[in-house]
């Protein structure tokens, strides 16, 4: 049973467009939602994260929108650049989760065409 689901599995946009990556989760006790990105042949790295005290988190061209009632969140990448082409992982952890464990989705492969 997947606790964190991502869609689409792959997404292609043109340079300058807005890419929207979706994530949903099962466990209502989750209270931390990071997005990691991973470039080919590299390791995952934290991109941006949100806690449910707010429903929006911005960092430059990257914005997380969070809907606690529907247990959904999305990552919006505005003015997409070819350098944004990577796999994006949504993850979640819960308050008091042992060892601060993260549960990852299977990822969305984003391709930005010039």
């Amino acid at each position, binding site marked *: 049973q997947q606790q964190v689901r991502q869609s689409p599995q792959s997404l292609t946009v043109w340079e300058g467009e807005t890419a929207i990556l979706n994530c949903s989760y099962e466990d209502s006790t989750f209270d931390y939602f990071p997005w990691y990105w991973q470039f080919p042949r590299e390791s995952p790295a934290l991109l941006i994260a949100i806690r449910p005290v707010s429903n929006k988190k911005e960092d430059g061209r990257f914005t997380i929108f969070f809907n606690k009632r529907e247990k959904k969140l999305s990552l919006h990448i505005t003015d997409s650049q070819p350098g944004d082409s990577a796999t994006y992982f949504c993850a979640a952890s819960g308050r008091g989760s042992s*060892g601060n464990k993260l549960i990852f989705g299977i990822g969305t492969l984003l391709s930005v065409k010039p």
Partner: protein
Amino acid sequence: EAAVTQSPRNKVAVTGGKVTLSCNQTNNHNNMYWYRQDTGHGLRLIHYSYGAGSTEKGDIPDGYKASRPSQENFSLILELATPSQTSVYFCASGDALGVNQDTQYFGPGTRLLVL
């Protein structure tokens, strides 16, 4: 600069052989993690540790053991390697407390091929 390093970076093993993957971190983090990454599955947690001397089972621990002899080092051991364990393995470290307590910092990965 804080860092997580892994060795070896690439490994070819034979079925039934023993494989040890090593991870070292200079972040002074209490928590360390071992993941495997496979197409269609994302990152799956194998074992993790709260600190030296502790190891805990993650979501897919079968066929793997872990060892945390010190704050800096965390090893993943495959006693009897099988082809199904062919994968990319990532080690990560993270703070137990503090403003960055939920952030995990990943090593470069180890590509393991079991023949």
